[in-house]
């Protein structure tokens, strides 16, 4: 229960930063934190079995195929989160590029003052 609340608090922190801060870099950080909160929620939802017996879903020397099927956490949300992290990185990169460009043209990072 506490882990789901932590994910939502992370999302709310990101949302607060995105909405209430005027500095564009802080807004982009807020967007990134919001995305991290969602990714954390997605991975946490994939946890199954108990803390003692759950294994990671990678077949190797420690985890056999049978152990993977019987004991591993859900690997599908981890795949979704990998994709979502890549997407968030791309969005943050593009947003920072636009932010730098805007800073060079407007002279300020405060989005309220980009009026012309």
């Amino acid at each position, binding site marked *: 229960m506490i882990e789901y609340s932590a994910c939502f608090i992370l999302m709310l922190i990101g*949302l607060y930063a995105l909405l209430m801060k005027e500095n564009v870099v802080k807004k982009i950080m807020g967007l990134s934190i919001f995305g991290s909160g969602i990714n954390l929620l997605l991975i946490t939802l994939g946890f199954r079995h108990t803390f003692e017996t759950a294994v990671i879903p990678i077949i190797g020397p420690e985890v056999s195929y049978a152990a993977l099927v019987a004991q591993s956490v859900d690997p599908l949300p981890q795949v979704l989160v990998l994709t979502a992290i890549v997407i968030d990185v791309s969005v943050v990169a593009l947003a920072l590029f636009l932010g730098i460009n805007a800073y060079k*043209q407007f002279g300020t990072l405060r989005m309220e003052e980009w009026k*012309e």
Partner: protein
Amino acid sequence: MIDIILVPWFGAFATGIVCRFTKKFGYVPVLTSLIALLLTIWRAPAFLTGVVTLEIWAQAPYGIALEADAFNGTMALLAGLIFTLVAIYSVRYIGEDEKYVQFYALYQLFVAGTLGIILTGDIFNMFVLLEIASISSYALVSYALDKESVAGGLRYMLISALGTSIFLLGVTFLYALAGTLNIAHLVVMLQGVNTPVLFAAFSFLFIGVGVKAAVIPLYLWKPKAISATPIPVATLVSGISTATAVYILMRLTYTIFSVYSGIISSILLYAGVLTMLLGAFMALLEPDVKKVLAYSGISQVGYAFLAIGFATASGIFAGIFHIINVVLGEALIFLSLGYVILHTGEKNLHKLGGLAPKMPLAAAAFLFGSLSVVGVPPLNGFASKWLIYLEGISTNHILATAVALVVSALTLGYYMKAFSAIFLGPGKWADFKSDWRLDYPILILLALCLVIGIYPPIIYPLLQPATDALLTVSGYLGVLA
């Protein structure tokens, strides 16, 4: 069916290679969009009578599936047509200079992403392709990198990235409930489920879609973004992005969340009415002509939401018809406005005037396009709006229908104001030499609007199977067989 998505995808990367060999790399988007459109037309008999599926890597619930039924396919045809026409237009409008190579590459990524959203049968794949199309559109909107483009583009980007993240949150909740991501399999797994978690999932998905469709109260990115971008990008973001968002909403409402039909209908009805009113009122006050068109687009999406909110088969028929007509009409208006901006460089209504003698085709196109969006008889908008009014009265939503009629009158008001301010009246401008790349898309769109308007049943063989396919959930489950 994956070739429809892969051809523009590889075309995006091929544009960079082509530009080393020839100066005419601007035609690569035209070629790939045309090939995608022809491939969709080739499959049309198959998807109009059944379901065309393609499974990647594994059988349906375990692998990713692309699935085209009649509704998908009709939307893909519309999108492919608009992409081809706007690509031809943008070769002349944007230019063929070396520095525009990335523009054409991004254009094709946007095409690939949008066609993927329309044709996919897996909801996480839909999110990924939605992000691909969105990121391409962020870059396209701010391509010019001047003050207005960067400010409008960054604002659009922050709001829209938040919206698509919320869409991911909705997908998360759906996965938590059902354990699967395939849309057809979700329908099967969510059969008897009616918990608040499902409603939370729908709310998040609705907000994510609403940001892309620019409904109340999630429309604030749209006016500044449309005003700041070049005309071809404005057509795509205002027309195709919005139509895709409405497609996602209809797919979610009628395929996955059919248990909540009553509540969803009320939400859509209220959202639609408020959107229509707000778009119309804001458009009346704007001096910037591209912002007028942006608000008009917002208002027309309200009509589509209203039609879906009636929750009857004829309502959905009218809604799909209205989306097609709005996309065609708005494309016509935006592209004819492109002549004005290309020639004068001026966006303010107070400074324009008297352009009709210099560009008669653009004036006629603007006039017919705006009459189509308003809903005047020999044009296509009339047919769909008439069906919406009839449906509103027969389902007893008298107030909503009255508001729709009033908003039509207001729409006429601001379009006539824009038309007379731009094209009529005194004004001295130089001669304008037009080009086949500007004229032919406008002529094709004008012909389509007139033909569908004069004889609406010509498009019914596409619309009727689309409505039936959307409402018959069991047809969509064909991929699981």
